[in-house]
């Protein structure tokens, strides 16, 4: 069915189609309309789920952890400081290998207080053991939410679906809503092997000693480090699983085919812009304008950020003259996180491309196409040795 709706409604529709059993969320701008829509679905009897209103994001994630441990398909959503308030429980959810799905409508972090878009909230959660997928438009939001439930339950790792606050969460765009029958056929039921079950009582995630230990049957039970190594291995293994799920999705719904990165005019480009989220679609206009000037340039949106799809990234970028990474977040005192990751992925290549890092759009600072055109045009011209300090685009005054 064709719909014209906001990104938040696209996300809510995806959650409904995936038949989430438990939803626990605390409203925060710009995620609020998503949770409102879900509570409407539940109240109207359109979604047979338990909607649990909580007093904080920390509790929202705690409820999802409990629900998921009991074998329910659990969902929550948040933004910015709400995500940070969940932090301790986020690490717990990943360590406990619970396939929770969460949408994050990306928003800048206070202080100073801001409600507008950037990526600092989810980037700051990069190392918590969650899979992170960045959607570029409304279609990708709804499709990614459905795929996220599949991926999460297959690999027993929680998944964040991130999309730009306001730019996607509040704007209306047309998208295709998959039929319920098709989603039911696509998404297998959630039947976890390990769950809280009074008939088969187990302790989960109690104090785990530094070393391995014999369990009560005399078998070697893993220590903390083995369990964490397993999480890492399974994160790496999820790259292939996502590719297979995406193929299945493409066969069923006719959309997809680029689960890791989405290149535009990159094939014979000399220069490639790399970024995440809606910015990568915005950049297509910039690329078209610069191509008309005769520049061989493309843009590549990174959709899977954790686990990091190095292979796909190296394949797309290693023969290029220069790479320009534009980011709405950074690791303060160092450089953009995506830039650092791409640089390290390209390190083993011969003839490494020249790399530049740009920070832009923090706290919702407007990103004008004209400024992007000028920034990229200048960056391509000045091929002097790149310095590692990121360049800030659109600063209007400096101390």
């Amino acid at each position, binding site marked *: 069915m064709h719909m014209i709706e906001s990104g938040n409604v696209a996300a809510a529709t995806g959650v409904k189609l995936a038949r989430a059993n438990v939803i626990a969320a605390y409203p925060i701008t710009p995620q609020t309309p998503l949770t409102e829509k879900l509570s409407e679905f539940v109240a109207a009897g359109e979604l047979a789920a338990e909607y649990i209103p909580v007093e904080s994001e920390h509790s929202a994630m705690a409820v999802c952890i409990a629900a998921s441990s009991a074998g329910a398909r659990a969902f929550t959503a948040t933004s910015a400081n709400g995500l940070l308030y969940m932090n301790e429980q986020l690490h717990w959810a990943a360590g*406990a*290998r619970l396939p929770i799905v969460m949408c994050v409508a990306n928003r800048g972090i206070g202080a100073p207080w801001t409600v507008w878009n950037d990526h600092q909230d989810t980037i700051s959660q990069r190392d918590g053991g969650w899979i992170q997928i960045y959607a570029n438009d409304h279609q990708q939001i709804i499709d990614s939410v459905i795929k996220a439930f599949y991926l999460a339950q*297959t*690999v*027993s790792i929680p998944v964040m679906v991130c999309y730009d606050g306001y730019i996607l969460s509040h704007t209306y765009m047309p998208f295709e809503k998959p039929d319920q029958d098709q989603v039911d056929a696509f998404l297998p039921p959630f039947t976890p*092997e*390990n769950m809280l079950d009074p008939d088969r*009582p*187990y*302790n*989960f*995630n*109690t*104090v*785990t*000693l530094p070393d391995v*230990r*014999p*369990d*009560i049957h005399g078998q070697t*039970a*893993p220590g*903390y480090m*083995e*369990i964490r*190594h*397993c999480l890492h291995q*399974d994160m790496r*293994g999820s790259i*292939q*699983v996502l590719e*297979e799920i995406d193929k299945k999705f493409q066969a069923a719904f006719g959309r997809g085919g680029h689960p890791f990165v989405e290149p535009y005019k990159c094939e014979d480009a000399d220069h490639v812009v790399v970024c995440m989220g809606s910015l990568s679609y915005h950049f297509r206009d910039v690329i078209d304008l610069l191509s008309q000037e005769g520049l061989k340039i493309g843009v590549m949106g990174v959709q899977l950020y954790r686990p990091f799809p190095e292979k796909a990234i190296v394949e797309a970028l290693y023969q290029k003259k220069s790479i320009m990474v534009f980011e709405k977040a950074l690791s303060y005192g160092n450089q953009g996180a995506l830039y650092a990751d791409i640089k390290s992925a390209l390190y083993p290549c011969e003839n490494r491309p020249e790399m530049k890092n740009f920070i832009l759009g923090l706290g919702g600072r407007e990103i004008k196409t004209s400024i992007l055109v000028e920034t990229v045009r200048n960056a391509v011209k000045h091929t002097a040795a790149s310095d590692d300090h990121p360049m800030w685009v659109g600063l209007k005054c400096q101390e």
Partner: protein
Amino acid sequence: MKPYKFSNFLSKSESGPGDGGRTGSWRVLRPVIDTTVCIPSKTGKPACFNCWLYCPDAVITKTIPPVIDYEYCKGCGICAQECPANAIEMQDESQFAPKEK
């Protein structure tokens, strides 16, 4: 889908003696049952067994008399606290240690 087995390693355990490792080595006080005071031991009837019920490490048997597995008893003293007959005394563990020659 490729048969890759995910999540083999969880922190998952069943309650039973030894699940937390050799917890007997943690003990500084040793629970000792006085069988002249312990209710089932004294009466020969299967009664009480509060110690068996409350021991968090499940290292006391539900037998007459109850027997404590010192390999895994961590010395928490819960059994002594819960015993209605005050039959369990927590004694200094060092007196049971093998004397150095």
